């Protein structure tokens, strides 16, 4: 009872997608009756994140749940935490192999490159040959892996097809408009989350391409769900962040209380969300979905 778990993410304060994660651990904490905390580097600087893992370890929790955004940086602190007797579960970014390497119990998440690749293959099957990747967070390596994977899935060069969109919605919208009007024969648009998807939907509505151009996105959110429903967006890749936060807490609590542990890693995604069966998703989008 009252075990303490700390979740450390690599996202800057303002990244809204991570909110589902916060809600996920909060709910798990409540249900399992354990203490949970969420921490992140305020500016998204991974080097700061390493310090936070050190700090988390120093505060002596029972377990740490963390992303593995850059193994080079995070390996050291995570290994030190593991060695000092703290159990670690890797979530979200990273791969099962890396998770094993750093001594984590397991990995829960969606390997970003693979997700991108799967999406690319799906798009290729739908006859897509060129695309625009709207990257709103270009300095984050996993964002690039998604675009790269998608390009590889299509079998094309990524090249200039990924734009640095910035984070201001009006700028994202207008950059998308500018790109599409300069490259009118683009087949598809790929966005990396609500921050870039919401303005992109508006952009497409404005230039009349909504519903016409092939549109896929990572991660769900209120507007994205609506877009899927009305046919603007073909599919959303759901990595189910809720599970990424919820499951590790549950797994660890049970491990600490009863010594039980699943034998495998858990892939919370990629799941393709399409217009079928959206009701639950709609209700909880942005909160638990």
């Amino acid at each position: 009872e009252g075990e303490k778990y700390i979740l450390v993410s690599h996202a800057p304060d303002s990244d809204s997608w991570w909110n589902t994660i916060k809600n996920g651990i909060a709910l798990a904490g409540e249900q399992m009756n354990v203490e949970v905390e969420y921490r992140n580097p305020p500016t998204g600087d991974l080097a700061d994140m390493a310090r936070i893992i050190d700090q988390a370890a120093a505060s002596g929790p029972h377990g740490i749940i963390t992303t593995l955004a850059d193994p080079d940086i995070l390996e050291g602190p995570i290994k030190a935490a593991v060695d000092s007797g703290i159990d670690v579960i890797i979530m979200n970014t990273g791969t099962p192999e890396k998770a094993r390497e750093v001594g984590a119990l397991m990995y829960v998440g969606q390997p970003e490159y693979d997700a991108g690749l799967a999406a690319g293959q799906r798009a290729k099957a739908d006859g897509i040959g060129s695309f625009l990747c709207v990257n709103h967070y270009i300095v984050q390596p996993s964002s690039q892996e998604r675009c790269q994977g998608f390009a590889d899935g299509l079998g094309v060069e990524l090249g200039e097809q990924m734009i640095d969109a910035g984070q201001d919605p009006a700028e994202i919208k207008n950059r998308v408009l500018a790109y599409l009007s300069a490259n009118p024969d683009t087949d598809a648009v790929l966005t990396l989350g609500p921050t870039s998807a919401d303005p992109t939907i508006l952009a497409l509505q404005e230039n009349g391409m909504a519903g016409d151009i092939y549109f896929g996105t990572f991660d769900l959110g209120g507007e994205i769900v609506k877009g899927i429903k009305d046919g603007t967006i073909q599919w959303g890749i759901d990595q189910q962040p809720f599970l990424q936060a919820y499951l590790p807490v549950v797994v660890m609590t049970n491990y600490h209380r009863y010594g039980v542990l699943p034998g495998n890693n858990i892939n919370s995604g990629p799941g393709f969300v399409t217009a079928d069966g959206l009701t639950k998703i709609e209700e909880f989008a942005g909160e638990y979905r």
Partner: protein
Amino acid sequence: MSETVQSTAGGDERIKEISPLRRALIRPELGGMVGTVAVFTFFLLFAFDSGMFNSQGIMNWSIVSAQFMIIAVGACLLMIAGEFDLSVGSMIGFAGMMIAIFSVTLSWPVWMAILVTFALCVTIGALNGYIVVRTGLPSFIVTLAFLFILRGFTIYLPQTIERKTIIGGIKDVAEGDWLASIFGGKVFQGLFVWLGDNGLIETFSRGSREGQPVVDGIPMLLIWAIGLIIFGHVLLTKTKFGNWIFAAGGDAEAARNSGVPVNRVKVLMFMFTAFCATVFATCQVMEFGSAGADRGLLKEFEAIIAVVIGGALLTGGYGSVLGAALGALIFGVVQQGLFFAGVESSLFRVFLGVILLGAVILNTYIRRIITGER
């Protein structure tokens, strides 16, 4: 060290000649005007057929520029009054979030949410100003503190109240609200339909809106930008208060001794800057239908950059609203133009830095000629 001309009746043998053309040209906006011409020439040459100059393209960079203009007007007047505000970006995020919380979470009518938010943000601007004039601290530090404080609340509040950091659904509640449409609507839609029908502007050739004109109206954002520029320009150059703004920024002590209510002027300008930031936020929230905790990041710098490109003096007492508007235009056109021209987008920052440096050196040169300052 500051005397120049020995004015006796007639000419002065100790002044060399300055040509009248040169004298006519030297004005605060000159740098901005030269920059605007240069930028347009450049893109007309290198991105003409990229769609940058068709009706849709024009609307595209106009909107981006208009955004910059709205915050640049506030920043410009404040800078001329001798202060600046680093909390503009955080204020944008904060204002948007407040509107969302009031209207969606608390289900207030949207007009009330907007009005209360305006009141709140302008009060925070006044607080900023009050601290600056009372303690005499540099506004850099005071507003830097508010940059952090406001951003902190913008993340913390929705997180605690709504369990998410993006609050959407504002479009639905704003439907038919009279005040919302002043920020989020479009005007002259009829005109554009007519233009499209008569083939004067392009129409959509595919998709759901086939046959409709590609540009279907002027967004209120543009109207606000133009309105604020006119207001700022008139205020600054045509009124008594405008004189006080220059005086407060030129030498606060001297102005105070001459009977200019310097503290009042500065506080009012902080409030006006906050007002502009809130206009920006409201337009954005009404257009996009959601408020996010990450809105407005780095906007404070962009506002300052536009103002400085437009010829204002960072230390106050000199500048023009028209210049700032041109600065914002340059900024917007370059940013969008690089996309049209297909330049690797991460190089945008490099261009921005280089343009900033170039503009500011040109402006300094012009200012020195005007004021005889050395």
